[in-house]
């Protein structure tokens, strides 16, 4: 129960960092060996659902190591990422947090959570992404401190109904 509280608070604060555009601090929540992965989903027959998502090494929307994540943040900070100036506005609804597995004597947690990410741009553009994340969290030294050593983001859409993915999940 304490763990649940701590993990939830961790996600709440992670979401706030992103909504507040504090990308560098957000980046620190990821381990150096992290993998940040959003596969492509495909509408397939029930009998072929095991091939619904692409796998690592195939095409993906995100398949980043820390260097790539850092590159994305640096890009946003150049002052020349025109698609983000005026900046888009985001709000994250994070729910259904579930510690589904504790591995290696508690040195790694597997956590599922659901999210709704709402983005507006300019006068009246709206995007909403809803999906689920499966994270591997490494508890840090202090209570309530974690490092994300792997994140898989599963969207519900196959054809992405948005112009770009210039934000983080």
């Amino acid at each position, binding site marked *: 129960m304490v763990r649940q509280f701590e993990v939830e608070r961790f996600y709440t604060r992670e979401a706030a960092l992103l909504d507040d555009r504090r990308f560098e601090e957000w980046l620190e929540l990821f381990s150096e060996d992290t993998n940040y992965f959003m596969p492509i989903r495909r509408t397939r027959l029930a009998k072929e659902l095991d091939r619904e998502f692409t796998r690592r090494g*195939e095409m993906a929307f995100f398949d980043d190591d820390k260097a790539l994540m850092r590159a994305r943040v640096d890009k946003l900070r150049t002052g020349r990422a025109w698609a983000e100036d005026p900046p888009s506005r985001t709000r994250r609804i994070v729910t259904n947090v579930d510690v589904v597995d504790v591995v290696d004597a508690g040195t790694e947690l597997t956590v599922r959570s659901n999210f709704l990410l709402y983005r507006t741009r300019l006068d009246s553009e709206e995007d909403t992404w809803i999906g689920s994340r499966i994270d591997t969290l490494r508890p840090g030294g202090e209570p309530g401190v974690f490092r994300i050593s792997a994140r898989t983001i599963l969207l519900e859409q196959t054809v992405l109904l948005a112009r770009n993915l210039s934000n983080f999940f």
Partner: protein
Amino acid sequence: MAISRDDIDGFISLERGEVDRRIFSDDEIFELEMEQIFGRAWLFLCHESQIPDPGDFFQSVMGRDNVLVVRQHDGGVRAMLNTCPHRGNAVCRAEEGNARSFLCTYHGWSFGIDGTLKGVPGFKNFYGGELDKSEHGLPPVAQVTSYKGFVFGTHDPTAPPLEEYLGTTGRLGLDLLACRGDMEVVPGIQKFVLDCNWKFAVDNLFDWYHPQLTHASAFVPSVRRAMSGRVAAPSADAPLIDMSGVEQQDGSELELATAAISNTAFDNVVVIGEYGHAIGGPTAASRGNEELPPGWRAAAGVADVLGPAGKDVAGHPNIFPTSWITTTMQLSLRIPRTRSITEIWWFSFVPRELPPEFRKLVVRIQNHVFGPAGLLEQEDGENWNQSTLQTRGLASRRTKHHLLMGLGRGKVIKEHGLARIETLTNEHAQLWTYHAWAQWMKGLDWAELRAATTPPDVL
């Protein structure tokens, strides 16, 4: 208010380099495009490597028709409309997969993978055995042909054969990808939706003028590092673009540290061809050793295929109307959905023979350059969307688009069966595409169309 040939001629001026904005936002134009262009042109459907085994299918789009491309038992490829001849229901709702039959879930008519009607519930009871099954298969696409594994189809039974349609320019465009190895598609077609007119997305593929500005934020050291030096490694002697007078919103001068497209000198070569195909961008020489995989042009037989003029072409081909072949070994389809909605599909290729580590690097590049989360492509949609929006205002429409870069200075060299222009960064290929677009829209017959899209001597 029907659109006349005169109207259409008035939309595009090759001489003045002008394009009328209404072609990007009038519903009637879009309807006419569906009919005259997407109802007649050969359109890319998929690559044969996506459907290796009998029954493998990939669902594609031709205009507003949904099309099933299916590998046959005899190894051939067919394409059928995904619609039941009984009441029109789709017979397949998956994007890709393997099927032994296509079962219509409305009344149960079932079709072979070649589209023939095989089973009809109640064929004896209700139809009295009188239904002529041979007349009620899935409607075939009028013509389907592959060129080196790239499957194309056309709705027009009178269209010239694919190779003739492609001509030397279209074939060179595909060869520039096909010659790099024994190509297969990496699993996962990125698909996303852009709120822009499709022609902005096509215009842009020839646009070697925008990267240094639009994508300025991607040409930073940490991106270079993360991409393993494949993007934008600047060389000290890369030429610089004249930026005098260019200021940011805050009044500061905008400085570009280097030519954006890494070692690219400004030497460009543009190839233009019948029916509107074109290739635009740097020469192979000015690209230097950056191509994927390195040194592919030197491989045995490649020079023969590309030919003496083609072997120095390293820009972006467009197979008219909407198939862009990239230097990252990808093919990007720009699928018009409405006058202001375009769907983008990214097909990514790797040579089968590539060592695993290098294959990994290629996929990493393909994943991170283009696509909706691509480090380059993120900004493009924003521009195209705004450009589309600003074609609707009464006053804004009075201002034409201006394609003046190099206008009238492009001497067309017709050699080795290709028509090319040797020049610097320019807008020739775009202008050629708009010109061809107008000819298609006028509803010329195939011979007239070919004549009207024969390259001139100067552009």
